[in-house]
């Protein structure tokens, strides 16, 4: 009769992992010596939130954007556009990703939620939102310019059959 227990796996891997856990435990009891529940929530919560909320969320948003732009492109009439669907949606997705990345990293300052920033540093907290919006404008605007120039170049290169 076969055992119901899973097999052991590589002993070397088990050894390596055990020593890793020992070190993590040594640091971990110190990490948890204060507000242990808060730290556990942040530590595990970060992994769970990222893998089960953030990744599905941005994948879904990306898929929605790609889908909407693709559908719109087909309605206008795909044959007349020299760039493929995939090529054109990139001109929206790339600046959106870059702008979103800046927002993700600098959200506390951009949103103005850090009440003590001005009194602590003597600097103005006003500019962050404005600068992020301007960078976003430049990213999307630049992308639009690139798209227009590529479309024009592609149209010129195509042998004209209209006249």
């Amino acid at each position: 009769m076969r055992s119901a227990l899973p097999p052991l796996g590589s002993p070397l891997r088990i050894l390596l992992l055990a020593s890793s856990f020992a070190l993590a435990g040594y640091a971990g009891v110190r990490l948890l010596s204060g507000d242990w529940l808060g730290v556990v929530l942040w530590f595990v919560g970060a992994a769970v939130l990222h893998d089960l909320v953030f990744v599905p969320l941005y994948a879904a948003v990306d898929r929605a954007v790609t889908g909407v732009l693709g559908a719109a492109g087909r309605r206008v009439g795909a044959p007349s556009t020299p760039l493929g669907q995939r090529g054109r949606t990139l001109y929206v997705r790339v600046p959106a990703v870059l702008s979103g990345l800046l927002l993700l990293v600098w959200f506390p300052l951009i949103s103005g939620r850090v009440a003590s920033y001005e009194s602590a540093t003597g600097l103005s907290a006003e500019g962050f939102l404005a600068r992020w919006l301007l960078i976003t404008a430049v990213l999307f605007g630049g992308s639009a310019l690139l798209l227009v120039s590529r479309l024009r170049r592609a149209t010129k290169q195509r042998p004209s059959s209209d006249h």
Partner: protein
Amino acid sequence: MRGPWFTSVLGVVLLGGITVLFVTGLLSYAAYNPDLSPVNDKTPDKGLLGFYLFAWPTDPPWLYRLNQGVHVTLGITLIPVLLAKLWSVVPKLFALPPVRSLAHALERISLLLLVGGVLFEFVTGVLNIQLDYVFPGSFYPLHFYGAWVFFAAFVVHVVLRAPAAVRNLRRMREGKGPQEEAGVEPEFPLVSPRPMEPTVSRRGALWLVGGGSLLLFATTAGQSFDGPLRRTALLAPHGAGDPGSGPGGFQINKTAAYRGITGRETSEEVWRLVVTGPTGSVRLSRAELLGLPLHSSALPIACVEGWSTSDQWWRGVRLRDLAALVGYEADAAPDVMVESLQRRGAFRKAALRANQVRDPRSLLALDVNGEPLTPDHGYPARVIAPAVPGVLNTKWVARMTFGDL
């Protein structure tokens, strides 16, 4: 698109980058001289984790500026790489069966420490430099012990996975396709069995990740420099501009108002510096300090948060000369405990080691850039020493006690 090549490239970049982050982090920890005095030590129960501590040197004077600039700027630059790497391995989270062996089960627990740890470190770091102290506890122990928990999982992950990643990259360079996953279990590939039509090429995705890193770098790195370069750090906490103009118009960590320092307690009539040593105590007014031999040093302010200023011209009394006032030979000056007027703040008391006190560039500064210190830069007197973390350059100094700590 998702697949061993993408994961391997990002993995190798992170291997190098995170190693630099860990080393610069440990060096920054050592720069506080936590083994010198309890007031410098926010992690008193560190035990063996402080095994490598050493007396932090004063040369080169920009050592801490460089170390911390690299730590913070590189960390921010790596964020897109980290996010892309985590995205690329998400399918493994849902691999079936969830547990195939004891070793596999342990490795999955280790991966929780790895992913939780890396996100914990990046999130606490990114929040701390924006002064958004919402994390559960003091930054120093959280970021330091969290780094060790993460590092334990990181090392074993690298040992188990790096050989496969390097193999994949070599194979790709030789023009062969990846034959197996970036790992030891080729039966659970990263490549989707039924992939959607790719909406971007692998090379394109890598360009996007690199572009994100470049954008973050370009809008952050300037906060380690003055002048026009600082204005390029459009979104960094100490980028975009200076708090004022003129001799005192350089970056401030915490203002006098924020620390509750009043004009009265720093006035010529009220403020006295108390210097204590084996021969007793000396009380000095600012005018009396200005009557002592004054020296100049060009030194930067460099914060644990990663921002720094270029060299400022400080003028004041050498710390070693102050030690000589209370019974020491200047060349044999001991450690010193410095106390600020400020009533709260983790470093209202700070200790400097003998090598820092003896350095002729270490001053109790009275002037900066040719003018008296401004209140925000520590008027009436502040410490400035080469290569120390900014918070050890105590402002609004009230008391200095020389002696071995």
